[in-house]
Each structure stands twice: as structure tokens, then as C-alpha cells.
């Protein structure tokens, strides 16, 4: 019996454990296994194998029972996830339904989740921009949150490292506020996007660039080696891409890590807590519940990476209590779960343009069009609000198809291919300020099916966000007007935080253990063998789409963890 038990412990012992298999967890697994470390990756949801588990990927529109629309019963039962732009008949199976995994909204928060291998990397909008020192220096310059413990120079080589593997398309635009990367060819701007770009450059010295995105516009050998192929411009990404044309953990990092022979992938494993050994002064493993058998199992490793997605990473850490850490693992400072924030996506613009009618587009643009990098408060504070916003910008021509009337004339109208004027659109992506009053907490009483306390979430827009939104609408209206666009409309919606799917913070990085959870290596100040490299680590939010930064921080943190393991500092 004793021997059996020893064998069993041995079987449950790895060099590294990664909690979560999405955007950043997949990278942690890839990096550890590449370096020869036996790695266990734990995923709370089901497995989603590349291609095999994309049931809708090759379906035609008419093959969907409701032509894409979600049945009303599903919509009404799922008010939260139903608000997500991608929750339709072709991808609904990749989203958590409201009732499956309840949480408590101390303030309204639309928590959009993907509980499966690959997580939300299957569903993301694939926009990838680097941060610059304008972003990393933001909190110190403007006096909020705490100073980032890193600068652009620390992360730049790691951006390059992950970009080469993931495959990022873009132009070298030479902008200090949006540093260039290792790019595959960009998806070009169309005639009106290019016209607007030239106009705002000459008139405002602002920029509209080809949106940078994680699509293989022209794959390199490293992408073919992953089994991925050139993006086919289908724009059905949310179904899972059979070509691996965009970056997802499912198409890229996870199969790569599995191929090494060093990865054990364990789906259906909800992590309850991280085990802290007081005598050793370090974490020794994790406790999971197998969601099929309800069995509680412990796994052990020298180093633990927490990549459960921002809110759930906070949940795991808050629930990992011990005599040494009664308020959550590594939480000597008391800031764990606080200073959470999001992105302000609550305004968008539309207009029309009657020029350049000799042009249209053919096919589909995976990048979605143009990107306007932040231009507000860049070099110095110049408005009545802190920080700024980026914006999407795209132009497209629709077929002029009138639905008026009935009979053969209606039929003829519906088959017409006459092009309408150009439609243009933009949406804001604003930085929000992390505040102590914004938090995630564990509920005192309510628990989920696996005995884990429910998460309470509280964050909200503030006065700064309102001013920023007003400025976005004013600035875009002016830029649209001066470009000769007509029928300009601004729409401000009242979406709750969360729908941006860019929730961040709670276990922030910082130089001072008294005010932060993680050091400059994403390593816990207080527990040196636990790392957090998903959105929970973010000290501030800036306004770039964050996934690329999580990837780069993850690869960098694994490199550091491995060097510390080699030195014997992590054992």
C-alpha cells in the first residue's frame, strides 16, 4: 500500500503546473515543455481539439436552423452572455451559459467566459498591439495605481518572441506610441480607410493604420510546423478555424506542447486552491475537483503558473488560504482582488461617404480595417480626463437591396448587386483607471458545485470614463466632418463593464510588496514559485487589446522561472 501511495504521488508530480489552457496558459505550457519540463495543464472545462471539435466551422448560412439567430428561450435564459457580439448559433457552444456558472454582481458586470481547452483564445477578436513606454509609464506619470515594475525595453524582445510564433500581420508604421513588431504582411486599408488615414495625418497629425492582428497573412515555416496554414479570409473565426489561420491555443500552443511529449492535458479539472506548505515556505501543488467524478485530487510541482483568466485567477488565489496567508495566497499587502479594471467600449460612430465610388472591396478583411492609436494625453496631460482611447475605423460598401414592396419587383430588388455609398464606422477602446474600490471578493456563504465560493464582482464607470467618452465622440465627429463624411451618428450605449472582455487586475505587478502582489517577473513577492501571467497581473489597462501583452509576459516569466529553477532558487 505504501509503495502504491508513493507511486501515486509520483504520478501526480510534475515540474510545472499551469492553471488554465487559454491565451496565456497555452503559452506557459508551450514554454515549459519546449525547455524539457514535465508540465501539467489543468482546464476546468472540456477538451476542444483543433478542427475535430469545431462542429460548425464548415457550415453554410442556410444550414443553421435559425440562420444564426439564437432561439428566444436561450436568449431569455442567458441575459449576460446573450449581450456578447459573438453569441450566435455558430459559436454559442464555446460560451459559458449564465446559469451554468453563477456569480454575484455587486455592480452590473457582464462576465463573458469560455470554459474549455483554449478558453477565449478561440473567440477573441485577434487584435494585437504592443504597449509602449507611454503606457508602462502611465500610472507613475499620472499618479494612479502603482508604478509598473517594467518598461518597454524589458518586454520588447518577448513581444518579438511571441509574435514570430503566433504570427502577427501588420505594417511597420514607425509610431512611438505603438511600437512595430515582427510582422507578416498587413491586410491593407481600403480606399476610404486610406483616404481617411491621409486626411487625419495631414490635418491632425493623427494616425489610422492597418489593424494589427493575429492572422497568418503569409505563413512562415514556424507556422507550417505548427500545422497551420494561410488565413483564408473566411472571417468565421469564432467557430474555430480549420486552417489555423488565426492564433488560438487550440491551433498553436497546446498541440505544439503536446507534441513535445512533456505535456499532460487534464480537462474537467476545477482548481479549488493552491497548496501552500508553511514549513517549506512555498506552494507545493494544487487541489482540483474532477468535474465528472467529483473526486478531489492533489497535484504537485516545483512551480505553479496561474492563468485561469483574470477574474478566476483572483478567485483561485483568494480561495488559497493558509495560516500564513489567511486572506489569500501572496496577499500580505491586502490588495489581492482590488484595483480591477476594464476597457471602456461604450461608444461607437457611424457615417456615410459619397466619394471614391469608383472603388469597392472584394473578399473579406480579417483585420477588420483600420486602427487609430491613442492620440490623447500622449506626451503630456492635455485634457480634463486622464489617459486616452484607441479606436477602430473601417469602411465598407453594402449592396443596395430594398426590402420594400411585395411580389416580383421585390424579388428583383433582392437580387440586385447595386452598391450603396460607403458606410464608415468606429468604436472606442478607452483606458479605465484601476481603483481600490473596484474589487472581486469571495462570497461568505454561496458556493458552486465544487465547493468553491462564488465570486462577487464590483467595478463601474467613473467620471473620467464619461469625460473620455464625450471626447471620443467630439473628436471622431470632428474628424469625420472634416473628412467630408455625412449622416454622422454617435451612439453611446449603457453596457456594463465586462462586455469588453478585457477585465484586468486584482493581482497586480509592482515594485513594492506592500502595495502589489507580483514582482517584475510576474512572480509573487511572497511565494517565489507562484507566477500570474494572465490579465490579473495588470497594473493598469492602457487601451491596447491586451492578449499580446499576456503572451509576452508569460514567455518572459517562464524564462525567468526556469533560470531560477536552474540556479536552485526555485526547487
Amino acid at each position, binding site marked *: 500500500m505504501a509503495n502504491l501511495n508513493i507511486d501515486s504521488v509520483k504520478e501526480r508530480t510534475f515540474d510545472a503546473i499551469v492553471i488554465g489552457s487559454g491565451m496565456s496558459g497555452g503559452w506557459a505550457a508551450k514554454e515549459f515543455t519546449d525547455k524539457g519540463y514535465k508540465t501539467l495543464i489543468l482546464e476546468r472545462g472540456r477538451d476542444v481539439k483543433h478542427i475535430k471539435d469545431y462542429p460548425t466551422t*464548415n457550415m*453554410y*448560412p*442556410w444550414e443553421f*436552423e*435559425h*440562420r444564426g*439567430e*439564437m*432561439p*428566444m*428561450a436561450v436568449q*431569455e435564459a442567458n441575459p449576460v452572455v446573450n449581450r456578447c457580439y459573438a453569441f450566435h448559433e455558430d459559436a454559442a457552444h464555446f460560451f459559458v451559459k449564465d446559469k451554468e456558472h453563477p456569480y454575484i454582481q455587486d455592480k452590473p458586470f457582464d462576465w463573458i467566459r469560455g470554459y474549455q481547452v483554449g478558453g477565449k483564445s478561440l473567440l477573441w477578436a485577434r487584435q494585437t498591439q504592443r504597449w509602449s513606454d507611454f503606457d508602462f509609464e502611465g500610472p507613475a506619470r499620472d499618479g494612479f495605481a502603482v508604478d509598473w515594475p517594467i518598461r518597454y525595453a524589458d518586454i520588447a524582445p518577448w513581444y518579438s518572441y511571441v509574435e514570430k510564433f503566433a504570427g502577427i500581420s501588420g505594417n511597420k508604421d514607425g509610431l512611438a506610441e505603438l511600437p512595430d513588431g515582427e510582422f507578416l504582411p498587413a*491586410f*491593407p*486599408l*481600403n*480606399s476610404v*480607410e*486610406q483616404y481617411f488615414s491621409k486626411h487625419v495625418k495631414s490635418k491632425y497629425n493623427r494616425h489610422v493604420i492597418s489593424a494589427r492582428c493575429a492572422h497568418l497573412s503569409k505563413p512562415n515555416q514556424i507556422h507550417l510546423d505548427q500545422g497551420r496554414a494561410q488565413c*483564408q*479570409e*473566411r472571417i*468565421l473565426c469564432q467557430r474555430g478555424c480549420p486552417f489555423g489561420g488565426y492564433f488560438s491555443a487550440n491551433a498553436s500552443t497546446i498541440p505544439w506542447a503536446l507534441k513535445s511529449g512533456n505535456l499532460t492535458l487534464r480537462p474537467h479539472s476545477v482548481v479549488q486552491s493552491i497548496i501552500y506548505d508553511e514549513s517549506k515556505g512555498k506552494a507545493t501543488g494544487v487541489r482540483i475537483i474532477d468535474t465528472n467524478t467529483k473526486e478531489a485530487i492533489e497535484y504537485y510541482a516545483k512551480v505553479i503558473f496561474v492563468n485561469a483568466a483574470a477574474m478566476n485567477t483572483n478567485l483561485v488565489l483568494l480561495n488559497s488560504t493558509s495560516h500564513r496567508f489567511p486572506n489569500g495566497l501572496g496577499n500580505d499587502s491586502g490588495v489581492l482582488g482590488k484595483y480591477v479594471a476594464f476597457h471602456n467600449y461604450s461608444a461607437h460612430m457611424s457615417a456615410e461617404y459619397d466619394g471614391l*465610388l*469608383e*472603388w*469597392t*472591396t*472584394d*473578399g*473579406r*478583411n*480579417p483585420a477588420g480595417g483600420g486602427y487609430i492609436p491613442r492620440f490623447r494625453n500622449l506626451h503630456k496631460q492635455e485634457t480634463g480626463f486622464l489617459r486616452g482611447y484607441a479606436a477602430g475605423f473601417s469602411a465598407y460598401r453594402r*449592396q443596395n*437591396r430594398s*426590402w*420594400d*414592396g*411585395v*411580389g*416580383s419587383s*421585390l*424579388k428583383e430588388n*433582392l*437580387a440586385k*448587386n*447595386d*452598391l450603396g455609398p460607403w458606410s464608415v464606422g468606429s468604436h472606442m477602446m478607452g483606458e479605465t483607471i484601476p481603483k481600490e474600490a473596484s474589487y472581486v471578493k469571495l462570497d461568505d456563504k454561496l458556493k458552486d458545485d465544487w465547493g468553491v465560493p462564488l465570486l462577487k464582482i464590483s467595478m463601474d464607470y467613473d467620471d473620467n470614463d464619461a469625460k473620455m467618452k464625450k471626447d471620443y465622440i467630439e473628436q471622431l465627429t470632428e474628424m469625420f466632418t472634416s473628412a467630408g463624411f455625412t449622416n454622422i451618428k454617435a451612439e453611446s450605449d449603457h453596457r456594463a463593464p465586462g462586455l469588453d472582455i478585457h477585465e484586468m487586475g486584482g493581482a497586480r505587478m509592482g515594485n513594492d510588496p506592500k502595495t502589489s502582489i507580483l514582482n517584475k517577473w510576474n512572480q509573487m513577492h511572497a511565494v517565489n514559485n507562484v507566477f500570474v501571467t494572465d490579465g490579473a497581473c495588470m497594473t493598469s489597462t492602457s487601451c491596447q487589446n491586451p492578449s499580446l501583452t499576456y503572451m509576452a509576459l508569460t514567455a518572459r516569466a517562464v524564462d525567468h522561472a526556469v533560470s531560477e529553477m536552474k540556479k536552485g532558487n526555485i526547487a
Partner: protein
Amino acid sequence: MNRRTVIKNLALIIGGAAILPSCMQEKGKASIGLKNINIDADQEKLIGDMAETIIPKTTTPGAKDLQLHLFVLKMVDDCCTKKDQQDFITGMGQFTDLVKKQNNRSFSDCDAKQREEILLAIDKDRKDPKSTTYPPELKTFYNLVKGQTVNGYTTSKYFMTKQVVYELVPGRYNAFYPVKKQAV
């Protein structure tokens, strides 16, 4: 229309008919299973005749060939709120009564021209949202039949392969594509 198209369309029509066990149909009931709304055979016929008036058979398939009325019923049954479903049924009754009153016969007994005139009048009235010519339930009923007939038509396999061709895989993005004069 060339011979090949005719054969393909015929195949579509036969394919559509094959999934409908109409000969097995219990008298007086709708031919498809509905969970939330009660539709009898006469009402199904009314929706069918309305859909056929909206998208008539010409040299190309019409609503009945493409079973669009069944798509309308499915969408109302699955994708509408309870309120819209109730209004749909109420509005259908109002529509039936109105047609009888104005024409001294049912919609199905009207000829094609009369049917088109009846629907066109409602269609035009929609331009003025404040108009009280028709009761609101009737408008909801008409909007659902019209909207889902056109939705079903423009997303049908026939339309997306023969009229405005949908490509699952474009494999290209031309950002500057010259607009050529449409050959009529």
C-alpha cells in the same frame, strides 16, 4: 433559365417536399411541430399564400417551392418573444377578418393581383409608424411574415447559390477593387 438551372431548382423543390410528410398529415393541424404557437392547417395555408405573394414563383422558385412559410412559422415559434407570438396570432385573426370584410372572401380565395394589393397596402402603410390604419397586432403579424419570408429567401440555399452567391472561403481580400458597370 437554362436546362441545368431548371433541373437544379427542381431538385431543390423535390428535396424540400421530401422532408414534409404532408400525406401523413393529420387533418386540421400544421405540418410542422411547433412548441409555442398553435397553428392549424388553414392558418398555415394563409401564411403560405402570403409568403408566395411576397416571393412569388416567377421564372425562379417562389416561397412555396422553398417552403418559406414553414421557415416563418419556425422563426416565430423559436425566436420571438411571447408578446410577439401572441400579437402574431391576434394579428393573423385581424388580418383574416379585414380581408373578408374588404373583399368578401378569404385571402386564399382572392386572385394573385388582389393578394398583392392587400399586402402592398399594409407594406406601404409601414412607412408611417404613426399610422393607425391597421391595428398594431396586425402590423406585427405582417412584419413577421414579411421579414421572415425575405430573411428565409435571402438566406436560402437557392438564393445563396443561384442569386447572390455566398462564398464560405473567399481566400482573398482586395482592398481596392474597381466598380465595374453592372452588365444588365
